[in-house]
């Protein structure tokens, strides 16, 4: 190849010489069996140049190929000479050629073709020479010499360019307008093949050949009809063993010496194998998808032994809601749907909205299917599992088995009488020890005396102030009533008994007239009733320094305790002795706001209930013996069992606590029966009953048996809920008390009535 390139530079003589030399080498090469192949390469290069079908003589030798090659860049004279030379050589080569051709019978045809082509090129070059005579430069239109410029530059001129002689070429008189054009289009059969030439401004009608050419080019084919673009390829390197080598270069030395680099590599590999770094190729393990009887021999596993292991719970099964066509009641209404959308996803009852489809065909894919499965996966490996003990209790079993109320009779069950007369809430009631009379004190400033059986009001005493507390003297031999209002305690003798009793009680009141007025700090003053008051029955007035809230009698009827709740002073409780008209303050210290007090029915004990605790004082020894913790916020009332060993406390936080004094200072039982504050509690003197009154308008009567056996705890059973009082100003029942002998109960309420339940 290099040779052919340099050849153009040399002179013709040189060329001839060189040619001879080259032809000789070519001969040698052909002997080696390579010559043809090289020729073929050259032929390849020439291929595009060849044209036109041909049936030339087939006798052209290989050398003609060479000549064709040479011609591409040289004169025609050379060609002739060469042809001669080649003819000469042809004869010489004949024998060799025959051999070669015989050897490569298959290639013959190809070669022949190439030979033909060689001939073709020769002649064509001759043809083209004429064209070059006219113009050696590129193919330019010579009718107009302006060159390859945009023709609109001549738009404004009358001419379109210049001919070879430099004369102007005038634009053809163009009188065609759109209409003409259209008519032309309609009438002229050759219109479609007419082309406007901008350069000359003339219309050219294309010939059939030219149209065919355009069509071929548009189809992407070669312009020449006869050109075969899929000619068989000649392989340079083929599988066949050639007679002559491609290159004649002797083998390198290095191809005879073992390679050092390779040796190094091999030794590395050997070392790696020895060290076990490289393992032999593993056998293809296809046992992954192969199954066998895994449980052929069953035994327990470690997990099974593992105490803490819990199997995962199963997914709950779907209900009617999830059906693709659920009953209509399971579909969401608009409100439910809105609620569902508002709710947090974790709060929702269902993670989906129930939907209905009229046929199975219309059911779409569930969009959260993969999510749900993924969440299940997460649950399986991320959730701590816990064994939840499910309470499988029949609720009936939880209800304690109590003795039937029927068996615990008698107790009050029905409301039998209502005592009306007061005009304001009745704060306190008290029953006379005989059980015949009932006294009630109200906020309307009156104390009324009722006959229990007939509910008639026998007597009304206007005391001129809201009555806080009333208490009958428990001594049956006297008939006295203590009334607390404002800061005064009045002792009334209602004269509702035998003359003898009345006289004895009056004697008691007037007994020790010579009481020392100077006793104490002078805070309490005893005065006698006079005039009008005396006719009403008010015999004694005990003036206190502060407002009195409660009065209580001692069981013997001589002593009287009054309560003046006050945070800041120790003057909260006074004990008065009526027979000697003497008062004393038993406490030196303030232990808290005193709510109520009570005497022990038999022994010289005194119960003081403060806000949170009940303190029990021994009056003889003058010391505190016990402090009961009520476990409630604010004690409202207290009652002592006639036996003296049990105390109940009602509190404003709806509780009733039962204390067993022998058992503990903590309540034996807390009863939370009431819905609202407990206002009053009471024990029955004879029957094992106690009651509590509350602001919710109910009185609850409980059975409370106390056993003499110390080991047996009291039995407490609620037996009746009595309702009757109406709630006024958020106040219900204010006081409650039992009849001294009958299983009857009186209650006074904020609705200004007193009621009797029997």
């Amino acid at each position, binding site marked *: 190849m290099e040779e052919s390139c340099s050849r153009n530079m040399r002179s013709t003589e040189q060329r001839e010489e060189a040619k001879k030399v080259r032809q000789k080498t070519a001969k040698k090469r052909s002997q080696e069996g390579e010559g043809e192949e090289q020729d073929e390469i050259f032929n390849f290069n020439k291929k595009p140049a060849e044209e036109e079908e041909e049936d030339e003589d087939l006798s052209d030798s290989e050398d003609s190929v060479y000549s064709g090659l040479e011609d591409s860049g040289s004169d025609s004279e050379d060609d002739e000479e060469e042809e001669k030379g080649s003819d000469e050589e042809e004869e010489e080569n004949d024998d060799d050629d025959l051999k070669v051709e015989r050897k490569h019978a298959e290639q013959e045809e190809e070669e022949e073709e190439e030979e033909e082509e060689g001939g073709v090129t020769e002649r064509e070059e001759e043809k083209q020479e004429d064209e070059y005579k006219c113009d050696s430069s590129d193919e330019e239109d010579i009718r107009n010499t302006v060159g390859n410029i945009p023709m609109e530059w001549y738009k404004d001129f009358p001419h379109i360019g210049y001919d070879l002689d430099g004369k102007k070429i005038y634009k053809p008189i163009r009188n065609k307008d759109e209409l003409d054009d259209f008519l032309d289009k309609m009438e002229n059969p050759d219109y479609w093949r007419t082309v406007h030439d901008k350069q000359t401004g003339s219309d050219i009608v294309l010939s059939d050949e030219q149209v065919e050419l355009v069509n071929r080019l548009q189809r992407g084919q070669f312009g020449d009809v006869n050109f075969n673009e899929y000619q068989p390829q000649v392989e340079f390197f083929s599988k066949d063993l050639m007679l002559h080598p491609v290159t004649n270069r002797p083998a390198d030395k290095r191809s005879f010496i073992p390679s050092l680099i390779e040796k190094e590599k091999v030794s590395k590999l050997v070392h790696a194998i020895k060290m076990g770094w490289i393992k032999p*190729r*593993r056998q293809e393990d296809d*046992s992954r*998808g192969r*199954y*066998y*009887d*895994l*449980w052929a021999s*069953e035994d327990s596993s470690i*997990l*099974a032994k*593992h105490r*803490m292991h819990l*199997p*995962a719970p199963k*997914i709950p*099964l*779907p209900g*009617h809601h*999830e*059906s*693709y*066509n*659920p*009953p*209509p009641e399971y579909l969401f*209404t608009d409100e439910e749907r809105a609620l569902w959308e508002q709710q947090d996803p974790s709060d929702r009852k269902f993670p989906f909205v129930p*939907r209905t489809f*009229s046929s*199975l*065909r219309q059911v*779409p*894919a*569930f*969009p959260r*299917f*993969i*999510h749900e*499965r*993924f969440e299940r*996966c997460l649950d*399986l*490996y991320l*959730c*701590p599992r816990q064994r939840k003990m499910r*309470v499988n209790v029949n*609720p009936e079993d*939880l*209800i*304690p088995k*109590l003795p*039937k109320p*029927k068996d615990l009779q008698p107790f009050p069950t029905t409301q039998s009488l*209502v005592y*009306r*007369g007061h005009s304001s809430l009745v704060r306190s009631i008290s029953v006379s020890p005989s059980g015949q009379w009932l006294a009630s004190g109200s906020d309307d400033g009156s104390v009324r005396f009722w006959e229990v059986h007939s509910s008639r009001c026998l007597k009304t005493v206007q005391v001129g102030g809201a009555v806080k507390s009333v208490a009958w003297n428990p001594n049956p031999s006297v008939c006295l009533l203590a009334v607390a209002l404002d800061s005064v305690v009045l002792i009334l003798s209602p004269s509702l008994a035998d003359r003898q009793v009345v006289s004895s009680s009056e004697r008691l009141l007037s007994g020790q007239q010579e009481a020392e007025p100077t006793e104490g700090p002078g805070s309490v003053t005893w005065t006698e009733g006079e005039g009008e008051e005396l006719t009403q029955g008010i015999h004694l007035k005990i003036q206190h320094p502060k407002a009195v809230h409660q009065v209580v009698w001692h069981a013997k009827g001589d002593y009287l305790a009054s309560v003046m709740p006050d945070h800041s002073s120790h003057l909260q409780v006074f004990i008065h002795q009526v027979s000697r008209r003497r008062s004393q303050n038993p406490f030196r210290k303030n232990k808290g706001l005193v709510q109520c007090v009570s005497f022990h029915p038999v022994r010289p004990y005194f119960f003081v209930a403060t806000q949170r605790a009940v303190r029990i004082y021994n009056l003889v020894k003058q010391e505190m013996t016990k402090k009961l913790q009520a476990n409630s916020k604010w004690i409202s009332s207290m009652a002592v069992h006639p036996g003296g060993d049990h105390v109940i406390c009602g509190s404003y936080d709806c509780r009733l606590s039962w204390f067993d004094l022998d058992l503990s200072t903590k309540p034996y039982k807390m009863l*939370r029966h009431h819905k609202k504050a407990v206002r009053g509690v009471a024990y029955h003197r004879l029957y094992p009953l106690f009651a509590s009154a509350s602001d919710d308008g109910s009185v609850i009567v409980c059975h409370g048996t106390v056993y003499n056996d110390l080991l047996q705890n009291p039995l407490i059973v*609620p037996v009746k*809920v009595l309702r009757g009082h109406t709630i006024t100003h958020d106040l219900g029942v204010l006081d409650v008390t039992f009849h001294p002998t009958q299983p009857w109960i009186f209650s006074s309420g904020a609705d200004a009535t007193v009621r009797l339940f029997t």
Partner: protein
Amino acid sequence: MGGLQKKKFERGSATNYITRNKARKKLQLSLPDFRRLCILKGIYPHEPKHKKKVNKGSTAPRTFYLLKDIRFLLHEPIVGKFRDYKVFVRKLKRAYGKTEWSAVERLRENKPTYKLDHIIKERYPTFIDALRDIDDSLCMCFLFSTFARTGKCHVQTIQLCRRLTVEWMNFVIASRALKKVFLSIKGIYYQAEVMGQLITWLVPYQFSHDHPTDVDYRVMATFTELYTTLLGFVNFRLYHSLNLVYPPKLDSKTESELKEEDEDDYAMNSESYLEKLSALSASLARVVSTAEEEEAELDQFPVEGEDIEKMEAREKEQKQQEIQKKLFEGLKFFLNREVPRESLAFVIRCFGGEVSWDKSVCIGSTYEVTDETITHQIVDRPNVDKQYINRYYIHPQWVYDCVNAKIVLPVEDYFLGVTLPPHLSPFVEEKEGDYVPPEKLKIMALQRGEKPAHEQEEEEEEEEEDGEGEDEEEEDDDNEEEDDEDEEAEEKNLKKLEEQRSQGKSLQVKVTAGKVKVENPARLEQEEKAEEKRLAIMMMKKKEKYLYDKIMFGKKRKVREANKLAAKRKAHDDAEKSKKKKMKK
């Protein structure tokens, strides 16, 4: 006073637990590997009772594992495999970085793999344990078998899942173990009873999945790895328990038939075989070819007293089950192309029916539409052009409802163009007091063998019944009200009397004739009992009261919900009725 000071958190519950991070460090595993190990071994975190104690005084949220669990993981051979894999990845990266392609190839060939057989054996020591836990694996495999073979996971996994699920379905058909089917909006639930275990699985509808981005497919793939292994072993065992060949082979007779037809449709023989299996139309080959399996008769044991009743009940149940197994025997179905073929073929074949479909839908169809012996054609479109006289054209829901009702239901409700009756969940078992949809009552009546009266009559009856019920209720209310009124009246009278008395003697005293109060002894007794109960409830302890209140609240809520459903239904029915009336007018 002597002795060393006791250090905190060195005894007690603090030593029983280990945090996740510590566990991970102890096992020398990365978090993904640790997660995979936990999944494979079934280790889950534990919630300690006293979190603060275990957490060494801190209240930071931490995940705790039992120390014993982690120790148990230490000896797992698969941990070593994980480490090997880590090393392999490192080496591979290095080889890539150095562009040593031969090394890459060599490493690739020696990629470490692991097997999970021993883990399965360890987690499920007995076969029954494995069966009990197979629900999740079935769901997962069915899901994975529907995935497209692109991207999300290995193609082999999908193929394996498909193979295993097809094997499972074939087993269920062969053993006729299917009990319940439910078409839900999520997919189709199946429940089968295998060796006394109820196994439920969910199959999504045949749609391509819209793969969510917030799902970690690695976790799912790890689970699938475990589940495919488990399911494979279970399938093997189950096939052998039925004397079937595993891996499943079609019956030689049917096989030859099939072969003639579609030899050329599939490129790979193995693939076509799986397709043929998944067509579910042919029975499987048995190891010992017996004509029919003899029914195992229950041996009669001499029993006494109550046991006899039990035995009888059991026998009855068994007979019923036998009947249910042959529910579709003798029926010939043809599936139109718009119905879910696989599900229906599976269900029908499970109950002994014959089924076929159009040849172009799937391989393995056994007869043509034109077959005159077809009894039911399952169609899910409003009308069919060419109808044959001697067969029913019914909606697919009929098949599922029949299975759930355990009887062949009347086909009238499921004809073309008819509004379908609601599809009920067979998994709901109504207890006393629960709401039972009227459709279920109807089916129950059919099961008892009562013939459904003409619908309108029924409706009328229902109406009447409803009316009666309401009336009764109203009457009750009235009674109560009357009583109340009586009492009130009495009280008023009393009040008046009292007022008269108290206000003074000026008013003339008048005696009004008393009314005879009629006492209903039963009612009185009831009231007394109610009051007793109320009083006893008052005496409950706080704890018990709380529990009692909770239980009662739950009960009340249940009643409320049932009432709500009933009311909704009634409103709906009323609306329907009024609509009908309007239409008539």
